[in-house]
C-alpha cells in the first residue's frame, strides 16, 4: 500500500483542518517613502489559498523563500491574523477565536522551528522547557512531572540525564530533539514543522528525519512539514503542496507530484533535483528571468516571467487551482501541454 493510501485509510474523509480562501496581508511602506511612492501599500504573503489537511497525514509545503509557506504555517497557529478567508479546525473557524478558546486551541496545535538554538530559552534547563507546558495546561500533577519529562526524552531518543542540561550544553541535533519533545508534551493534534531539519548537518539530519517518521507512525500526529528541500519532502510527506509567491500552484500525493508534475514550476524545481553528471548538456528548466515582484503591480500568473510554457492569456489573471484528477490539482492554464511531454 502506498503511503498516501495508508494515510487515507488511517484518516477519515473529514479533514482535520480546512483552510478556505485564506489571505494573509502585510502592510508595507508605512514610512515617508511608502507614502510618497506609487507602490502598493500591502503585500499578500498568502493569496487566497484553499487547502485541506487530513487527519494523520504529513502534508509537505514546498517552496522557495518568499513563497508564503511559513506564513501559512504561522497562520494555522494563529500567529498571524487572516485578512480574508477562514481556517476550520474541528468544525470551528479558528480565525475568530479569542481568549480562553484560543488558549485551549494552542494546546492542540504546536510548532517546531528551524533553529532550535533560538527557539529554546538559554536560561532554562531541558526539564523546565518540557515541564512548563505540562504544568501550564495541567496535563499531570506536580509529582508526576519528572516521570513524564523522562518519558518524553526517551521518546525523542535522549537519555534522562539530559534533564538538567542547558541548551548551550547540547549539540544541534540534541537541541532539535528537545524542541520536538516540547511540541509533543501536550499530545497535539497537529504539529507545524518549519524547516525543522534545514540547519542540521547531513549526518545528523537523517537521524532527525527518522525520528519524525517514527513519531508520526507511532502517534499518528498530523504534521505540516514546511521545507525548501525536495528530497526531504519526498522522504517524509504523504502529500505535497507547491507554493510560489503566496499561491498554491500544485497539490497532490507525493509520488504523483514527483512522477507526473503538471505545473511548469514544479517541473523546474524537480529539474534542479536531478543530480547531473559533470559536463552534461544543460536542459533549460526555467528561464533566467527575474522572479515575480510581489510588491509590483503585475497581474496574471505569478510564474509568468520564468515560464517556458507561457502564452498571452497567462498575463491576464492568475489561474485557479483546478482538479485534474481526484487527488491532484494544479493552477496552470497550460498543464495539459506539460502532461503531453
Amino acid at each position: 500500500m502506498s503511503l498516501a493510501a495508508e494515510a487515507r485509510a488511517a484518516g477519515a474523509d473529514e479533514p482535520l483542518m480546512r483552510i478556505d480562501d485564506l489571505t494573509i496581508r502585510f502592510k508595507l511602506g508605512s514610512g515617508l517613502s511608502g507614502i510618497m511612492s506609487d507602490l502598493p501599500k500591502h503585500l499578500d504573503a498568502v493569496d487566497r489559498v484553499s487547502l485541506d489537511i487530513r487527519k494523520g497525514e504529513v502534508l509537505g509545503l514546498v517552496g522557495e523563500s518568499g513563497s508564503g509557506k511559513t506564513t501559512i504555517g504561522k497562520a494555522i497557529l494563529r500567529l498571524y491574523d487572516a485578512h480574508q478567508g477562514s481556517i476550520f479546525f474541528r468544525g470551528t473557524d479558528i480565525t475568530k477565536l479569542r481568549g480562553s478558546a484560543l488558549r485551549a486551541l494552542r494546546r492542540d496545535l504546536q510548532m517546531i522551528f528551524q533553529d532550535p538554538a533560538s527557539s529554546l530559552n538559554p536560561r532554562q534547563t531541558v526539564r523546565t522547557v518540557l515541564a512548563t507546558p505540562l504544568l501550564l495546561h495541567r496535563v499531570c500533577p506536580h509529582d508526576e512531572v519528572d516521570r513524564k519529562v523522562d518519558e518524553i526524552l526517551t521518546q525523542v531518543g535522549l537519555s534522562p540525564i539530559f534533564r538538567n542540561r542547558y541548551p548551550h550544553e547540547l549539540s544541534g541535533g540534541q537541541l532539535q530533539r528537545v524542541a520536538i519533545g516540547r511540541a509533543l508534551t501536550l499530545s497535539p493534534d497537529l504539529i507545524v514543522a518549519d524547516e525543522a531539519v534545514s540547519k542540521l548537518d547531513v549526518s545528523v539530519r537523517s537521524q532527525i528525519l527518522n525520528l519524525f517518521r517514527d513519531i508520526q507512525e507511532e502517534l499518528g500526529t498530523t504534521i505540516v512539514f514546511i521545507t525548501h528541500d525536495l528530497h526531504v519532502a519526498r522522504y517524509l510527506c504523504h502529500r505535497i503542496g507547491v507554493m510560489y509567491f503566496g499561491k498554491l500552484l500544485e497539490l497532490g500525493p507525493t509520488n504523483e507530484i514527483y512522477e507526473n508534475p503538471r505545473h511548469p514550476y514544479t517541473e523546474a524545481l524537480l529539474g534542479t533535483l536531478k543530480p547531473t553528471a559533470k559536463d552534461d548538456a544543460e536542459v533549460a528548466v526555467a528561464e533566467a528571468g527575474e522572479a515575480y515582484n510581489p510588491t509590483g503591480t503585475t497581474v496574471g500568473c505569478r510564474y509568468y516571467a520564468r515560464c517556458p510554457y507561457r502564452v498571452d492569456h497567462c498575463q491576464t489573471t492568475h489561474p485557479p487551482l483546478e482538479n485534474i484528477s481526484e487527488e491532484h490539482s494544479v493552477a496552470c492554464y497550460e498543464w495539459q501541454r506539460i502532461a503531453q511531454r
Partner: protein
Amino acid sequence: MTDTPIRSDDVALRIRGLNAGFRMSDGYLPIIEDVSLEVRKGEVLGIIGESGSGKTVTGMSILHLLPENAETEWKVFDFLDLDVTGMDEEAFRDLRGNRMAVVFQDPTGAFNPAKKVGWHFHQVFERTAVKSPDHAIRAKDWRNAAIDLMRDVGIAHGANVLGQYPHQLSGGMLQRALIALVLAFEPDLILADEPTTNLDNIVERQILDLFRDLQKRLDSAFVFITHDMTIAATLCDRIAVMYAGRIVELGSTKEIFDDPKHPYTQGLLATALALEEKSGERLQEIPGELPHPGALPPGCVFAPRCPHVFGRCETERPPLFDLPGREVRCLLYEDDDVSGR
C-alpha cells in the same frame, strides 16, 4: 607521497602539512591538522564537510584571511611558481589582490555598500589594465566591457545595474554580478565558500551552471567549498572530504562517488543517496555527532561513530594512506598503501 614534491608546471596551488588553530582565552584550540592538497590550473577541487569539519578554516588559511587570534603553520605552500611559506603579509596582500578571488555565501560582503555596482567594475578594470595592451583598451571602455560580461552571466539590463547600489539587487543578481567581476578580474585562484547555499533551488542551479562556464573560460585553479554532495558531484573534478579538521579522503569525484573508501564518506554518500532514491526505507544514520575540536578522541577522530571500528582505531591517529589514485585516512587501508612507508 614524497618530501620533495615533483614540480609540474600546471599545479597552481600546492599545500603540505597545514595546521591551523585559534588562541582562545583558555588556551590554544587546534582546528585543522595535516591538510595537504594540490589544485591544478583549470581544475575544480571540492572540499566537502559538515559544519565544524574545518573546510572554511582551510580555505581562509590559504587566503590568509583568518582572524587575528589564528595561528597557521605549513610545510609547503606553493602558489604558481612562488614559495609563499615565508612571505610577509604585505607581499601576500598584493599577491591576493592581483591573483586570487574569493566568493562567499553572502555576496553583499564583497561589495562596498556605499558605491554603485559600476564603481566596482571600474576598480577591477583599472587594476587589470596593466596586464596587457588589450586589457588597457578594455579599461578605457570599461562600461561596455562590464555590460558584455554581465550579459554573459545572465544579467540582461547591465547598463541599469551599473547605476544601482548593491542593496537594490536580489541575492541571485548580486551573486551574478560578483561572478561577472571575477570574470573581469581573471584570477589564477578562485576560492568559493558555499556560494549558493543562501539561494533558492532554481537560482542555485543557474549560478552553478555559471560557475561551470566561468571555470571553462578562465582556466584558473578553483577551490569549491560545500557541504552538499550533489553540488560537489556536478562541479568538481576532485574532492577532498574533511571531518573534524582532517582530510579523511581525497580522490577524483567519479572514484569517490563510485567507490567511497573511508567509512565517513561511505556514510555521507549513503545518507545523501537514500534521500534521492526514495525507497520508503528508513534512512541510514551516522550515529552520534561531530566531536568538539577541543575534545577530540585520542585515536581516529571518526572512531566513536565508525561502524568498522577496531582496537587500534581508539589509540592511533591514522595517517593519510596512499592508494592508487586515492588518499584515505583509515587504518583499514594500511595494507593497501603504495607509498612504501
